[in-house]
């Protein structure tokens, strides 16, 4: 009994102590989001966005620490001070801007519908009526689908895009809406053979936003400007293009 107590105390002491203010804790989604952020089998986080975070932090001379956080609660984690910035493929939208601030965008990707090969559909509310559509929770895709597709189709909400893809492969859903870059990765796998891109959804910038940026707490202008400077620096010196070329065939910066 006493040993249990001592062990527990030691564990607590180890974890509470480190309170360093100058480390920037960068929140990424704890759920895999290949090819942007995903853990590898050695327990390291890898992917395009992980490398971009490293490069931005190096250019802005920030000491950054990746902090995997549940996607579902990543904004609460930012607001409660558990993390200092969100760099997790989060689109800059009007809704989110009411709660948090964003840096300049660092990439942009069209939103597509991927569906079963053997079914007729397109990326419109009429083309999807009667279908079962899967989306990831707390994403622009969920908001978009709730706005445009909820009337005629059945929506299912998943904790991760991986799980929605998995259910698409198993046939439990007919289609999913997500970023084209993330879905390209899935379509390239064996499980993705079931499905194909059915089209790009109609643009609604108030929901889909204007690109992906780093989220910061409102008023944290010092960090926001440092991140902006870092993003501008890696765009200017070619680091951004060099990293992108290793993951994608074309530029993903957008206009």
């Amino acid at each position, binding site marked *: *009994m006493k040993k*249990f*107590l001592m*062990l*527990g*105390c030691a*564990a*607590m002491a180890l*974890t*509470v102590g*480190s*309170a*360093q203010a100058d480390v920037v804790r960068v929140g990424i*989604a*704890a*759920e*895999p989001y*290949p090819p942007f952020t*995903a*853990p*590898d*089998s*050695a*327990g390291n986080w890898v992917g395009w966005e992980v490398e971009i975070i490293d490069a931005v932090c190096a250019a802005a001379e920030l000491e950054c620490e990746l*902090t*995997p*956080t*549940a*996607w*579902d*609660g990543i904004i*609460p*984690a930012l607001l*409660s*001070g*558990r993390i200092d910035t969100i760099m997790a493929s989060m689109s800059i939208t009007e809704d989110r801007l009411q709660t948090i601030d964003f840096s300049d965008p660092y990439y942009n990707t069209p939103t597509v519908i991927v569906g079963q090969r053997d079914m007729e559909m397109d990326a419109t509310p009429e083309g999807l009526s009667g279908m079962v559509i899967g989306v990831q929770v707390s994403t622009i895709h969920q908001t978009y689908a709730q706005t445009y597709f909820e009337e005629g189709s059945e929506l299912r909400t998943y904790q*991760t895009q*991986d*799980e929605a893809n*998995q259910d698409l*492969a198993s046939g439990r859903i007919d289609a999913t809406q997500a970023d084209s870059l993330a879905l390209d990765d899935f379509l390239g*796998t064996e*499980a993705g053979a079931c499905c194909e891109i059915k089209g790009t959804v109609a643009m609604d910038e108030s929901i889909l936003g204007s690109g992906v940026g780093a989220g910061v707490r409102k008023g944290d202008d010092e960090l926001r400007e440092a991140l902006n400077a870092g993003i501008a620096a890696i765009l200017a010196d070619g680091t951004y293009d060099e990293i992108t070329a290793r993951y994608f065939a074309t530029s993903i910066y957008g206009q």
Partner: protein
Amino acid sequence: MLDWLFQTWPGLEASAALLSLEPPGWGGNLLRGALNSVIIALGAFTLGCVIGIFGALGKLSGGPVTRDLLSIYTTVVRAVPELVLILLLYYAGTDLLNQFLRLLGYRPIEISGLAAGIGVLGIVQGAYATEVLRGAIQSVQRGQTEAARAFGMTPFQTFRRITFPAMLPLALPGLSNLWLIATKDTALLAIVGFSELTLETRQAAGSTRAYFTFFLAAGALYLIMTLVSGRIFGWIEARYRRGQAGARA
């Protein structure tokens, strides 16, 4: 033996490769997650026991206000799902703690995910531990504590020397049950993104799409944890009950 198995069931070899401890196998990640689960469970159980002891003493010999507040605590925790409590305490807990510290003029502290997980599960465990320990303390015979008082022991000495050792064997079955709950509740921290066994499993399964293999492997790890700790608790119980033949009923 292994060769024969792999030949008769080709899927098994692929599963074994996925689970191997060295990359590209994901076994190492699973074991790291399991270690985290054990650390959280140990921490939460310990914290729960400490809260439980004070809670039980408060319920038994505290003033009316203490007793009522403790009843509210145990009732709320036992009626609200752990998942909801974890979310509330995980986000609001840090916030409130820091506001409180600021009010007292201290600098806000950073709380690591591990400490927050231990704290949250510990508070949940504490409510159940309070009830277990209260029952155990109540069943210690009054005469024993009165005798201790008569010998001139302070209440604290009485508790340490008489009540605590006498109630421990009675509390152990309940506590061992709580420990099992603690190990399983660590899985809920996967929902707030803490990398314990269940989240590591989900990541591995999502990345490789071998859902069945990884969930079964994680199930086996949890089962090993609970069976081994069940044995340990059985052994402790047997030790503490030595010479207490009468207490067995």
